[in-house]
């Protein structure tokens, strides 16, 4: 019997060893707060994207540091800073000195949570998510790639413009951080010379909470919780006093007003059309080209995904027509047949490497979408290069506006040509990836990715080759997945690259170089 117990112990020990060998499954990017590679003292003069007249957003001067009010605030921070509970310490570590990264991650998580396509009702009809009744079912929103690209664009632009204003007043009023006023306050993050009034963290917290609540109304409580935790963490960290936060919140509020006004009138509310309009778009293409895409699900969805997303207001491209792709090869043409043959070949035999590429880039339903994938790349480069929050927001803002512009351009092309998917043109064709609910040409993944790569290559030239390789891989992944012809991918990459250069040209002249 002793022997048996011994054996059992070995088994238990073995399981414990195996448990220790498991890979981590992190919920966020765990990085050490770092010293910023630059402070950008002139950042307050950089050109904003959304705010057309930054001098109209005013911030009154702070109380002098020898005032009773300020000294009381300083005392409050000193007390908090000296007696952190373990959960407060965790929050301080979580938010880091670059909270732009965390709010971006929160946005991606919400995109993944809401990226669920509504299923059919019992009678075979479909109900669309409705912002007037966000609870649903189905819940609002369906955070598909166009929706997510737009959500990220507004979030990043509001963060960036708010931070430009914050930088402007920081260096105008030059009030140093609490830990510089009182050496007994120990900053939780590496010290920097940034004036603390207004708090840049509070700007980011305020605009992020408001924009994300607009985009994900059912998450209002969760966002409020993140917001309060973030604000408190800045006092606990000894980097701001409460009037710094209030000033940041004020700037955030002003920027959010402008962002909301633009979002209300950018055409997104009309992007998901009723069936008669959708049918007329399809028929127009059929008359022009002799083909039209149709949804292949059972029961058939009456309308494709956001047929008029191509009409939504762009950020950097004056008219969508100038970035519309040339016509695709006609069905039955030699190039079409060659590309079909290629698809049939992959379906017959796929290497493990091809399968891996198709899945790594799938970014399909339930995921953070291709724009999310590129935000992850941006985040890693931002941390690697130790960018300050202002520079980080600038990267996200130009990349996400370029990615949204790419989505608008791609969707315009998709519904203009209305090109059928491989499962429609190839008899009996079956795929490893699900076929999306919109026309094939050009490939969204290719367009989003090439635009993202173009902007990231501008900001991080040392990694340009890698970004462009990734964009190529994202494009080709859709061919391996069986849901795009090669010409969808090739033309999509060209289109994304072209759209990306509009954003890069703006960034080159924004005064930040």
């Amino acid at each position, binding site marked *: 019997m002793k022997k048996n117990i011994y054996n059992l112990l070995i088994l238990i020990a073995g399981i414990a060893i195996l448990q220790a060998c498991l890979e981590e499954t992190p919920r966020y990017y765990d990085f050490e707060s770092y010293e910023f590679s630059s402070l950008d003292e002139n950042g307050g003069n950089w050109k904003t994207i959304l705010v057309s007249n930054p001098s109209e957003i005013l911030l009154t001067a702070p109380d002098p540091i020898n005032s009773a009010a300020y000294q009381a605030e300083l005392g409050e921070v000193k007390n908090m800073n000296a007696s952190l509970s373990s959960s407060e310490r965790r929050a301080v570590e979580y938010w880091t000195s670059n909270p732009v990264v965390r709010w971006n991650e929160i946005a991606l998580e919400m995109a993944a949570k809401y990226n669920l396509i509504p299923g059919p009702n019992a009678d075979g009809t479909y109900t669309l998510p409705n912002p007037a009744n966000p609870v649903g079912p189905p819940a609002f929103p369906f955070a598909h790639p166009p929706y997510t690209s737009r959500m990220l664009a507004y979030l990043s632009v509001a963060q960036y413009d708010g931070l430009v204003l914050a930088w402007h007043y920081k260096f105008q009023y030059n009030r140093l951080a609490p830990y510089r006023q009182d050496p007994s306050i120990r900053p939780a993050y590496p010290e920097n010379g940034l004036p603390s009034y207004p708090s840049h963290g509070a700007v980011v917290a305020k605009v992020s909470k408001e924009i994300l609540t607009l985009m994900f109304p059912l998450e209002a409580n969760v966002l409020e919780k993140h917001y309060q935790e973030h604000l408190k963490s800045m006092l606990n960290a000894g980097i701001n006093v409460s009037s710094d936060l209030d000033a940041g919140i004020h700037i955030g509020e002003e920027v959010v007003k402008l962002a909301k006004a633009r979002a209300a009138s950018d055409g997104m509310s009309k992007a998901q059309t009723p069936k008669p309009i959708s049918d007329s778009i399809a028929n127009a293409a059929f008359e022009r080209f002799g083909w039209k895409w149709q949804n292949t699900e059972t029961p058939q969805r009456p309308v494709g995904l956001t047929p008029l997303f191509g009409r939504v207001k762009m950020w950097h491209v004056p008219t969508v027509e100038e970035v519309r792709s040339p016509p695709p090869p006609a069905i039955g043409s030699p190039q079409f047949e060659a590309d079909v043959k290629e698809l049939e070949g992959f379906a017959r035999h796929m290497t493990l490497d091809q399968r891996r590429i198709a899945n790594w880039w799938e970014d399909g339903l339930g995921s953070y979408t291709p724009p999310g994938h590129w935000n992850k790349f941006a985040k890693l480069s931002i941390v690697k290069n130790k960018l300050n929050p202002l520079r980080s927001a600038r990267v996200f803002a130009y990349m996400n506006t370029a990615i949204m512009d790419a989505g608008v351009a791609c969707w315009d092309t998709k519904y203009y040509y209305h090109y059928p998917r491989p*499962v429609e043109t190839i008899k009996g064709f*079956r795929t490893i990836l699900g076929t999306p609910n919109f026309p094939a040409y050009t490939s969204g993944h290719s367009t989003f990715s090439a635009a993202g790569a173009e902007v990231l290559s501008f900001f991080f030239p040392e990694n340009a080759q890698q970004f462009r390789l990734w964009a190529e891989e994202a494009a080709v992944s859709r061919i391996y997945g*069986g849901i795009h012809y090669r010409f969808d991918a090739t033309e999509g990459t060209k289109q994304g690259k072209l759209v990306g250069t509009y954003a890069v040209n703006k960034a080159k002249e924004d005064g930040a170089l």
Partner: protein
Amino acid sequence: MKKFYSSVVLLAILYLYHIPSLQAQMPFDEIMMPKGEFCVAGIYEVSKWNQYWEGDYLRGNANIGTLTRQMLMPMVAMGLTKKINLIASLPYISTDASGGTQVGQSGIQDLSVSLKVDWLQHRVGTGRILFLTNTHISTPVGTYLSDYMPFSIGAGAPEIGMRGIAGYKLDNGLVFRMAAAYLWRGQTEIERAYYYQNGSVYSSFMNVPNALNIHGAIGYWTLDKRLRLEATYMSLNCLSGDDIRSYNRPQPTNKMEVSQVGIWTQYYIKADRGFGAIAYFNQTISGRNMGKAASLGLGLTYQFKAY
């Protein structure tokens, strides 16, 4: 992950090494074979479902239609000693959906090796009380992807299971049997670097939940112990995990639960050596994050004395 697999193998070796100084057929039944006895078997199983549980909501999905899963499983069992039997199996599985446009998957699934130990046989009344254990270890072989659910052919994770089997075997051929196993499951490597499981996960590994697995049977041996008939019950309950999200596909992290009732018959053509045949049928009666499957299995066994 390589490190992980080598430790699985190491653990198996360690465990096997320690067991022989102590004093079969299916890993969950009470049957033992004498030392030197060998049984080889081939089992074909087909199972189908056209409804599945999304969380606890039973639904159909016309883009899957009916999902058919076929399995061909070679198996060997051998009597290492009178009290210790070894069982190994390696199934080939293929899946196919009648609806939608997505392709089914096929390939070799998991190699499973288990040791069954007969601990106790005690006469009580007009029968014997039995207690056995079965310890198994299984690991995916080949290159199948667990993340193609519901088309994927397996969970893609290593598994270690400890099962206790208790029974009462009457002299008149009636058998009552209950088996309970704890299944420890490791991780499955997927090809995405991000997935959602009640929040973001930045990893290409998914934790497959541990599970409790129950088998119950009332059996009857007749025709000079050549025919075995059983009414069976099986349940598997993951102890953690998330639900399939609305109209979304399943993934290996899901909290899967299933219970089935079935019948099992086994016929030895000539006593307990030589050829035998197996037939069984199982019907899923409840579940969570699983298909409501009915499955039919047919098998051929051949038993002989090797040494």
